[in-house]
């Protein structure tokens, strides 16, 4: 993918819902020019490693990145997975200022655009431009909120069906153990479920 095409995709995502005359549009255009990439990453590569404290921002053009960690008992913990045309950043550092508790790992060959954290920090301090930081936060809120709703409201079977329909790349990219962790169920439960479904 060409750099300009990739920047257009970012601009399209950030201007969704804004009126044609919205004053933020030129700010968004300027922002998209600061992205580096497209950067190809191989399967298994870390975009953020546990212990990192940078807040670089990634826009995924293609592929799947999952936040993968371990709980206190050593069990797999996968709080989020990001697919094509979604945003990804070091959540722990963004929210608490602490180091990443999990690594963000490419589950497939992945193509990303990246912008340095300092660009976001500068935007946050400038009147008229800080709304863009809010728009990015809206994207993250939507992502995290939707996952929580599925965990609370859906049975594992329904959650799996939702992924099949809406997050097929993640579903294919996860190992069975990873999928069980992402659905918040045990490995044995997942195997039973898949056997019943005949998947």
């Amino acid at each position, binding site marked *: 993918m060409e750099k300009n095409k990739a920047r257009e995709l970012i601009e399209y995502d950030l201007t969704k*819902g804004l009126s044609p005359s919205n004053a933020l549009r030129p700010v968004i255009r300027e922002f998209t020019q600061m992205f580096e990439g497209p950067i190809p990453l191989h399967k298994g590569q870390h975009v953020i490693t546990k212990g990192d404290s940078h807040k670089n921002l990634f826009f995924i053009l293609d592929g799947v990145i999952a936040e993968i960690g371990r*709980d206190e008992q050593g*069990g797999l*913990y996968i*709080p989020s997975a990001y697919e094509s045309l979604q945003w990804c950043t070091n*959540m722990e550092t*963004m*929210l*608490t200022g602490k180091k990443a508790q999990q690594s963000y790992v490419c589950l497939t060959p992945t193509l990303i655009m990246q912008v340095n954290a300092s660009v976001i920090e500068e935007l*946050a301090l400038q*009147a008229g431009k*800080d*709304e863009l*930081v*809010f728009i990015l*936060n*809206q994207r*993250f*809120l*939507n992502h*995290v*909120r939707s*996952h*929580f*709703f599925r*965990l*609370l*409201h*859906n049975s594992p079977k329904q959650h799996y069906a939702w992924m099949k329909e809406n997050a097929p790349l993640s579903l294919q990219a996860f190992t069975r153990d990873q999928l069980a*962790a*992402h659905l*918040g169920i045990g490995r044995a439960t997942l195997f039973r479920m898949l056997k019943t479904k005949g998947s």
Partner: protein
Amino acid sequence: MKVRLERELINLYGLEGVIGVEGIKAMAAAFSVDSICMGRDLIWTPETNVQKLYFNTKGVLAEFSRVDGKMLCQQIITPYRFFWSEKSFLMWEPSDTTMVCLKPSTIYSLDGEQVRKITHENNLGFLLANGLTRENIKGYRIRSRNLSLLNATERLNDTLATNPRILDQLNRNELASYLGLSRSSVFRLLHTLYRGKE
């Protein structure tokens, strides 16, 4: 109440020192009583535009979401906390939840338009919007972690540790829906808990 509102707003903004304090004082002063709610009163319902920042005083509220006919408790608003409909106030869409009063409270509020005006006049930018959004993301990540990693007993213990009065605030059905467990599981867990204390 104004002093309390100021203090809580400073926390919400995450401001240090004197930056923005005048704006926060102006915002705290602009809050007024929205309602005096009794148990089961509704603060907002789905499909409404809830463009307000609320402050709960001494009561307890709970936010419920309905998916496929199931009404589940997604968060509890404990005393002296701000609350807002993230779908409306932060994501600019109609609310998809119901906020219910569980224990009588006096609710203060500030209209979104007023928030914007005071924010603009005091050059507070999007600090509040970003602060509220981060609060929501943090909350959902903690709740998701608990639902993913903790078993039923651990979920109950963790919730009791965070909010020791929750058993007085929610009925057993509401508690079950908050924990993502069945009603019978919660009854069994509580039975075990009480038996252990005897």
